């Protein structure tokens, strides 16, 4: 009988693990990934594969350099998830090196230089997206209309390879701006939203994702379903998604009510760009968000407010990546100030005395209603 290795209490566990958690998140992303692949064809598959391979190789290389177990490090699934999230936020027909540079940057600079899993300050995928957007604005903002698989306009396998790895120019006819980008350009030219939107935007298409955009961000419905499934499986909590979406909804409703010609309606905001993906899958990254409930709510509100501010008044049409990265930087501060109140202590950490009144009130009330 093997009696007792050195181990202290508790001698029980709920059975959850980091790799299971990451597996759930990956599974929840699967519908959005598949939809993106169907919508944008072979080039999207190529880009996804390149990004994932680079992420895993960089993770393995860094672990090996650091003298850690490569197998255990890869098994936790964090690098895979970073790769998927990054790929989902890229333009689907972007050249292969966008995925490769982004993946390498995410893992090496975004995560491993901080000390690996659990140590990074910024969400690696979003940090890489911000870097790519700032460094390669042309490649990162070349969007195209949906080219669904098996439809006449979809590129074949070889053509797909050429788009991703070759130098094929994407024909002008197939590209277009996202609704957020288009609206922003038109607004700058003092056109009213009532003129801009009707021909370019349809709420139903936006919801199911039949529109141009990043590989996996177009279908708000599929992302939302994945997010709700994660909530149901208790892989994430509602604090951040609800706070983030709520902040955008409140701000967008308020400004839309003030001036509907200048400010887009809240539904457009929620269904467009990477907001849904950000709220359920990116801002909820445990490593880079606060640990307490209050902190997470503040963090979510901050992310949502920044998204709205950047979209409306910033220099870029989309702001999820910037908003998340900025709030990541604020996380240590939020964690410092928003702690739960400890049992028997005041908010400032002093011992919390019980007043005679409270003591006797507790007795009086309980005794009064003391029925069996």
């Amino acid at each position: 009988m093997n009696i007792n290795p050195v181990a202290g209490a508790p001698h029980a566990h709920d059975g959850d693990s980091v790799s299971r958690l990451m597996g759930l998140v990956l599974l929840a992303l699967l519908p959005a990934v598949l939809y993106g692949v169907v919508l944008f064809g072979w080039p999207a598959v190529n880009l996804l594969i390149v990004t994932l391979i680079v992420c895993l190789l960089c993770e393995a290389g860094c672990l090996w350099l650091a003298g850690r177990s490569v197998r255990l490090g890869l098994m936790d699934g964090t690098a895979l998830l970073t790769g998927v999230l990054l790929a989902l936020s890229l333009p689907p027909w972007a050249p292969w090196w966008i995925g490769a540079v982004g993946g390498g940057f995410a893992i090496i600079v975004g995560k491993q230089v901080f000390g690996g899993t659990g140590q990074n300050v910024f969400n690696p995928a979003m940090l890489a997206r911000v870097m790519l957007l700032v460094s390669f604005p042309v490649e990162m903002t070349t969007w195209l209309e949906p080219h669904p698989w098996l439809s006449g306009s979809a590129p074949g396998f070889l053509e797909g390879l050429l788009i991703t790895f070759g130098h094929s120019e994407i024909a002008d006819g197939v590209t277009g701006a996202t609704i957020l980008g288009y609206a922003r350009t038109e607004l700058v030219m003092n056109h009213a939203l009532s003129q801009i939107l009707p021909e370019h935007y349809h709420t139903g298409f936006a919801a199911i994702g039949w529109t141009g955009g990043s590989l996996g961000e177009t279908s708000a419905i599929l992302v939302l379903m994945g997010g709700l499934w994660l909530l149901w499986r208790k892989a994430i909590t509602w604090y951040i998604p609800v706070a983030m979406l709520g902040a955008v909804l409140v701000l967008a409703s308020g400004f839309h009510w003030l001036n509907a010609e200048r400010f887009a309606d809240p539904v457009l905001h929620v269904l467009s760009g990477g907001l849904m993906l950000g709220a359920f899958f990116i801002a909820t990254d445990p490593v880079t968000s606060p640990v307490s409930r209050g902190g997470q709510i503040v963090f979510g509100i901050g992310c949502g407010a920044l998204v709205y501010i950047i979209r409306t008044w910033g220099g870029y049409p989309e702001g999820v990546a910037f908003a998340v990265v900025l709030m990541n930087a604020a996380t240590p501060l939020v964690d410092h100030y928003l702690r739960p109140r400890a049992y028997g202590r005041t908010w400032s950490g002093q011992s919390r005395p019980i007043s005679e009144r409270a003591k006797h009130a507790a007795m009086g009330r309980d005794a009064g209603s003391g029925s069996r």
Partner: protein
Amino acid sequence: MRLHTFRGGVHPPSQKHLSADRSIEVLPLPPRLYIPLQQHAGAPALPVVTVGQKVAKGELLAREHGVTSAPLHAPSSGTVTAIGDFTAPHASGLPLPTIVLDTDGEEHWVESEPPPDPFSRTPEEVARQVGAAGIVGMGGANFPASVKLSKARQAGVHTLVVNGAECEPYVTCDDRLMRERATEIVDGAAIMLHALQAPRALIAIEDNKPEAVQAMRDACQNDARMTVLSLPSRYPAGSAKQLIQLLSGLETPSGGRGTDTGLLVHNVGTAYSVHRALRYGQPLISRIVTVSGGAVAEPRNLEVPLGALAVDLLNYCGGVSKDCARLLMGGPMMGQPLPGVEVPVIKGTNGILALTAAEAGEAQPASPCIRCGRCVEACPMGLLPLELSKRARSEDWSGIQALGLSDCMSCGSCAYVCPSHIPLPQYFAFARGKLAEQRREERKSAHIRELMEQRQARFARAEQAKAEAAAKRQAAKKQRAVVMEEED
């Protein structure tokens, strides 16, 4: 009565079905009993018997030493064969001074007068009698019950909480005790109310024990002072602080006493022992122990003489199977891993568990913290377990104290939910050990400094005395010289 709530907590599978339907059975008397002198909080007891001495059942073996201590009595009649070191019920496996008693199987009781009616005695006398019977908190805290009773009366406690929550998984000894001996528990509670001079008692039981709730309700329906409450099952509802919060909404002030809230918590087993002591004059010499776990052939609830070895209990329950990965005293959440099966049952032993690897949750080695915050959500004390463990790793002792390490009660909820399988309570235990060591060192150096100062003061006094004596001599000399001059 409206219940309040407490923060955090977890819902481990209760596993009580393994043993909950087994009636209490009396363990056949083992040939040899091992009674450690330290089985309560406070100072170890002092032996009053000698090797070779024949003792009767219930006879005093060791008396209490100081205010916070408890006496020990012979669990059966027989001969004291040794007073020496024996493996203690602790993970370290270190030996503790222990009285070894060879039983003669006759079980003849020490002769004593039948005790007077407890309600005709003063509260002080009742508390003293509880102390003399060696009764300690039987929920596992092992704190001498008489000390708690008399302090609580002085603090003006208005409510006695009889704790039958039994929130630890597997353990069913309190459940069985309440089902089978409810009248005795209620009588013990009434005696404690008298000792406290308090007007009412709340009997708190988790709702996963409906039979116990019903039995207790039936037993106290004629006593208007007592109320039986069915609590929602959530670990650690049976912890005194959380139980007080559940019942009253009040929090024990950090660093303060539970009695500051006006409530005093005692385990149902303690109430039962008070009944035995005050009604029959029987000291605490046996208790109910749950033997359970996936590696035990037939889980049972046993009435066991103190000092019986874990192996005696396990053998009676059909032995331990090969897939036993963890042998515990207590429940899985807070229990002590045992160094072997040759370890005695003490007053606070509520369970002997043999768990399989799957039950003990030994799936994975620890991986890096991903800051998911589940430990923060689970902590019933509102602490930040991940930050505490980080401080412990970097040996930041002042930081860990500032984060409230002293508030942690090692309930294990944080580690239960940690997806990275980090053994958080072990970090906290390590930090506590280091801090205690630091305090000892500080006391030691303060003591040395004091001695040094005293020594220097002594030297200074001696110097001064010497100087004064020299001055006196000088003066005398001068005097003599003057006198001599005058004589010349």
